[in-house]
């Protein structure tokens, strides 16, 4: 007969069986029994200062390691504080499991103290969620949660666990496999469709690979590189796919879309065949839809059938895991005759390189270039959201997957710093930078305490322009420079803030101080906040105005 265990014990034992090494979160009344078991469990617990930080840390951990990130919070406000982080993970298909305490089952629905309908609130922002009302269901639920989070198109799963269920005892049985009849992701692509795709590729004259975050999630970088090398077809990546294809390859066009390279945007708009891989034709990528790539046929490979023909009509849909499909495609694909096309792309690259105005005050692009230089391109870069995110995407050369962590879909300011902490916990031997803005950093600045106390030596590079910079840029360009509610006067002294938390703060105002400061930051085995005072009106270019076709790019240097 199996030993009797409490719900809390079953939960922690299940997490151990899922090989969870770390949980990010905050304790509270409705999860006390779980934390009591956690007290001497072989799982590291990182106490954050806000539950939003915990969710982003689990997310950063998951993106950097490819494993499921776990966060935990109490009922009510603890759970609602997780929601921004859960929604962030949901939009970018990141596998996390969030565990929340709930008021005891007999109080559910009674407006009890710290009660919120958490499964109701998180239903649209999770891949799936569970309210466990019977301790007998708990072990199976945890198994299913990890299975759902990490397979198919990954995503966040929430388990809501009432306090009385944490205390109830049962003879626990831990299932080895999850068996869910309504959930069977299609993993292999249809051979007939793959053959058709290969034929279409061989006949293309202006083909382009448009790679999305699915390539990274599927672990298919190697297969993508093989496809490009075998066919000579150039590759543009989305923000989510930075690093999925090495940007130092001559076939790389860098990022496409609203702030993509001019040559990537010209190439996709002029192409006669788009091979979309693990991407979803987001509005930030396509620009104005009815003007998007008018002559292109489209092959779309994705594990999520609902991503196919959602925004654009696709000629050859292939539903399956990107890695599997590319492996099969690479076996039969042949090189098309595209030398004229490649020459045209070379010309675009030469005539429209990514560049910025130099001289005058410290330029954020220069800071990012130096971060690349000093880390030799080997760091993990997390970003906040806004100009900092775009400069980090444009001016750091990404050559490996899982090295660029950014809230692409939801665009969550405050994501980068906690995500960098999660990434550093998962990859302690990597240098981890959060490229931040002064606005975003303050949205989760409290996690400095978490980084310092837990000795997680991440580096924060604030590109400090004293503005909500990207919104200011839109106001400059489209609202007659009427800077409404974007001036961040009243910012604290970030060096002093860092020091107050026990981290190291360094302020940099001159170009020549950038490199020494970065070297110093890396040499210190502590969290470091670098406050780079940059040109306050530096802008992100190129830029496709919202709703315009991709070819209508604004250029900063024109």
């Amino acid at each position, binding site marked *: 007969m199996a030993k009797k265990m409490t719900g809390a014990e079953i939960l922690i034992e299940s997490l151990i069986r899922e090989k969870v090494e770390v949980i990010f979160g905050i304790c509270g009344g409705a999860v006390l029994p779980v934390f009591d078991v956690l007290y001497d469990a072989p799982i590291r617990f990182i106490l954050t200062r806000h539950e939003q930080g915990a969710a982003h840390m689990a997310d950063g951990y998951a993106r950097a390691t490819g494993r499921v990130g776990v966060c935990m919070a109490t009922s009510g406000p603890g759970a609602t504080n997780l929601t921004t982080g859960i929604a962030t993970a949901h939009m970018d298909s990141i596998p996390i499991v969030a565990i929340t305490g709930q008021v005891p089952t007999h109080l559910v629905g009674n407006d009890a103290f710290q009660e919120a309908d958490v499964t109701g609130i998180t239903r649209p922002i999770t891949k799936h969620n569970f309210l466990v009302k019977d301790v007998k269901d708990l072990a199976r639920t945890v198994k299913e949660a990890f299975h759902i989070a990490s397979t198919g198109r990954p995503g966040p799963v929430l388990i809501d666990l009432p306090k009385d269920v944490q205390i109830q005892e049962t003879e626990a049985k831990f299932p080895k496999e999850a068996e869910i009849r*309504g959930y069977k992701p299609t993993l292999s692509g249809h051979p007939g469709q793959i053959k058709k795709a290969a034929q279409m590729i061989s006949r293309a004259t202006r083909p382009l690979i448009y790679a999305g975050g699915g390539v990274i999630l599927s672990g298919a970088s190697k297969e993508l590189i093989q496809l490009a090398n075998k066919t000579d077809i150039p590759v543009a990546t989305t923000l989510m796919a930075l690093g999925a294809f090495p940007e130092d390859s001559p076939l790389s066009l860098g990022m496409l879309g609203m702030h993509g390279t001019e040559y990537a945007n010209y190439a996709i708009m002029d192409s006669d065949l788009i091979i979309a891989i693990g991407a979803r034709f987001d509005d930030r990528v396509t620009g104005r839809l009815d003007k998007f790539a008018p002559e292109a046929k489209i092959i779309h490979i994705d594990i999520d059938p609902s991503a196919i023909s959602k925004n654009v009509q696709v000629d050859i849909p292939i539903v399956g895991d990107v890695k599997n499909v590319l492996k099969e495609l690479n076996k039969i694909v042949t090189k098309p005759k595209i030398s004229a096309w490649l020459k045209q792309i070379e010309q675009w690259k030469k005539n429209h390189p990514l560049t910025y105005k130099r001289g005058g005050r410290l330029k954020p692009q220069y800071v990012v270039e130096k971060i690349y230089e000093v880390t030799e391109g080997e760091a993990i870069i997390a970003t906040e959201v806004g100009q900092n995110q775009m400069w980090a995407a444009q001016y750091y050369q990404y050559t490996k997957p899982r090295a660029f962590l950014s809230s692409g879909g939801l665009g969550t300011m405050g994501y980068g710093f906690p995500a960098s902490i999660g990434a550093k916990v998962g990859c302690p031997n990597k240098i981890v930078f959060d490229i931040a803005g002064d606005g975003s950093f303050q949205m989760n600045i409290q996690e400095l305490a978490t980084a310092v106390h837990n000795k997680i030596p991440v580096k924060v590079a604030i590109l400090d322009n004293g503005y909500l910079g990207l919104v200011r840029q839109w106001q400059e360009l489209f609202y007659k420079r009427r800077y409404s509610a974007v001036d961040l006067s009243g910012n604290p002294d970030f060096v002093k803030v860092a020091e107050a938390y026990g981290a190291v703060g360094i302020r940099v105002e001159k170009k020549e101080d950038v490199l020494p400061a970065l070297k110093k930051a890396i040499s210190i085995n502590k969290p470091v906040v670098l406050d780079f005072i940059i040109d306050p009106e530096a802008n992100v270019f190129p830029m496709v105005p919202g709703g315009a076709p991709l070819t209508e790019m604004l250029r900063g240097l024109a």
Partner: protein
Amino acid sequence: MKHIINVLVENKPGVLARISGLFSARGFNINSLAVGETENPDTSRMTLVVEGDDRVLEQVTKQLHKLIDVIKIADFVGEKPIARELLLVKIALTKGTKPQILQVVNNFPEARIADVGEKTITIEIVGEEDRIQTILDLLRPFGIKTLSRTGKIALPKGSK
């Protein structure tokens, strides 16, 4: 265009909210939704009538498939299912109108009297959409006071 979709789901709390939430979040329009247990108490069958072109129908089906609690979907594209709806119609009653109303009811096997009161008569109608419409059109002149309908349920024809 209207489409009938049958969705076989886990018979669990919250499943209806997942389905209706999906429709509101994605901006799909539901004309009607009927739900009940199947031959197996573990599962429920929902019949949805959805408004939209083929592209909308394709997205609706794909999005429904993504829900973990959805087991199976039948969209009846290119086939006509057996579809029925139940209506209860309360109609104003006067001495003069009673025989005429009864005549309508007697002429249609889909209709029968469910309840007769002093001032109203309640008729139940079970049938296909066009027949229901015909009966309603004939009853309307007598004054419909209240109308309640279940929404369509459907099953494929033959042994499927």
